[in-house]
């Protein structure tokens, strides 16, 4: 493969495991190891391990760091306590989504923010512009993506595995909280976060510890999982993927992400988002379910009585639900759960039912 794509510290490990490598967001990443269905099953029933080092690690610090992030994120930064994390959108002046991200409050005036792989350069440039324009006296940004690795251990067995390996039991960390810890002596920062709809942890460590961490976790029962399984898992959990459900031309309101948007603060894009919140939007993101295994896929037309009323943004066969699922935008008057629509699957019309998201919620254990 003659590409100039970036490689994570685990690239050779993936090759040795027989992973199939694909380009994703400027990186060469494993899309699958043993097979997507088995990997999805591992995460839903035991424990899966993902290399997500392609995602960014941006550290924002300084006396104006909180004010800076409150100017650029749709969620409240100031109200987030040290030790906690939050999901939020970064919007442009039109309310379009530049990226979605989880950010961790590391200290009173220090944050870690995780942008998507393909958006890291855009986010860094966007942040730098605002540092220079408005916050140059008290805010610094450091991109430590290359110096660190990011692994995600996901599944109902994740907490037990981590408790066995860490100096402090990570099972005491609440969802969307983080702690510093040692995993078999390796210094890590772990957050109880993820992108699969299961319990789990995302683990930041120095890049040169990545291979050792990976080996320890797989030796302790975690199944290596690729981006293929990750995409199915996040779709089942109703989680948006930037470039599909959200992008610079769609807003969090259209995407049904209001609960991650504050309407009581001023920030880039807030006027558009407030106005949409009050007046409503023309199209909305919905879940779609269709019986059978032939899936509606991205860009397929959504129809009502033969007339186009929307477009699919992601779709797949769902092994967990044994049916086909998709997300897509439809005209707002078609968005109510229970509505029956159709999808044009390569010339064949399949019935789809508008379904509340998420498709899958993990059982309470």
């Amino acid at each position, binding site marked *: 493969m003659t590409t100039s794509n970036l490689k994570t510290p685990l690239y050779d490990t993936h090759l040795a495991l027989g992973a*199939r490598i694909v380009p994703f967001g400027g990186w060469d990443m494993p899309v*699958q190891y043993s097979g997507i*269905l088995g990997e999805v099953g591992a995460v839903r029933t035991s424990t899966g391990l993902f290399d997500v080092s392609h995602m960014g690690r941006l550290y924002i610090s300084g006396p104006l760091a909180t004010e800076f992030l409150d100017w650029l994120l749709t969620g409240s930064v100031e109200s987030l306590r040290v030790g906690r994390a939050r999901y939020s959108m970064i919007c442009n002046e039109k309310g379009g989504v530049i990226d979605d991200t989880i950010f961790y409050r590391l200290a009173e005036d220090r944050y870690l923010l995780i942008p998507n792989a393909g958006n890291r350069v855009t986010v860094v440039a966007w942040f730098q512009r605002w540092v220079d324009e408005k916050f140059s006296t008290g805010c610094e940004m450091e991109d430590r993506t290359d110096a660190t690795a990011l692994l995600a251990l996901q599944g109902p067995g994740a907490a037990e595995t981590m408790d066995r390996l860490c100096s402090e039991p990570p099972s005491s960390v609440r969802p969307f909280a983080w702690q510093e810890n040692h995993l078999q002596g390796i210094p890590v920062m772990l957050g109880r976060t993820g992108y699969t709809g299961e319990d789990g942890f995302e683990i930041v460590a120095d890049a040169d510890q990545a291979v050792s961490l990976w080996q320890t976790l797989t030796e302790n029962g975690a199944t290596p999982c690729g981006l*293929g399984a990750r995409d199915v898992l996040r779709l089942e959990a109703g989680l948006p993927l930037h470039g599909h459900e959200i992008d610079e031309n769609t807003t969090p309101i259209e995407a049904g992400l209001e609960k991650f948007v504050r309407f009581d603060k001023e920030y880039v894009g807030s006027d558009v988002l407030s106005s949409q919140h009050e007046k409503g939007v023309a199209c909305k993101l919905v879940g779609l379910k269709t019986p059978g*295994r032939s899936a509606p896929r991205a860009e397929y037309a959504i129809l009502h009585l033969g007339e186009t009323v929307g477009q699919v943004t992601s779709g797949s*066969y769902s*092994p967990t639900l044994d049916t086909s699922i998709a997300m897509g935008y439809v005209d707002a008057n078609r968005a109510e759960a229970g509505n029956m629509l159709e999808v044009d699957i390569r010339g064949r019309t399949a019935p789809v039912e508008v379904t509340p998201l998420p498709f899958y919620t993990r059982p309470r254990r």
Partner: protein
Amino acid sequence: MSPDDRKYSKEHEWIKMEDATQALAGITVYAQDQLGDIVYVDLPKLGATIKFMEKMGEVESVKAVSDLYSPITGEITEVNDRLLDHPELVNEDPLGEGWMVRVTISDATELDQLMTAEEYESFINGLS
């Protein structure tokens, strides 16, 4: 890896003659491996006419959809219905239980345009 009791197409289908006119067809080990876990197979109907190297169906994996091409011209005399509920058979045994259609062929000379096992092996070696 590819047995020499059958012929192979550039689109990664195989065809195996059972007698002078009846043949079985399916996809190769290489094809199912490239596709990954197969979740749905859309095959032609019983009695349908299929044409040499024209689309006759679709194979859908978790990540992708691929067209299925007919390695021969002829009429469908049997469809492997087991694949409807067990598409994983195509992954597990693509050359055996994962067969897709049985055909009465109408022009045996088309087989000369397909690859032998040896030719197919060197063809796929040139792909990766």
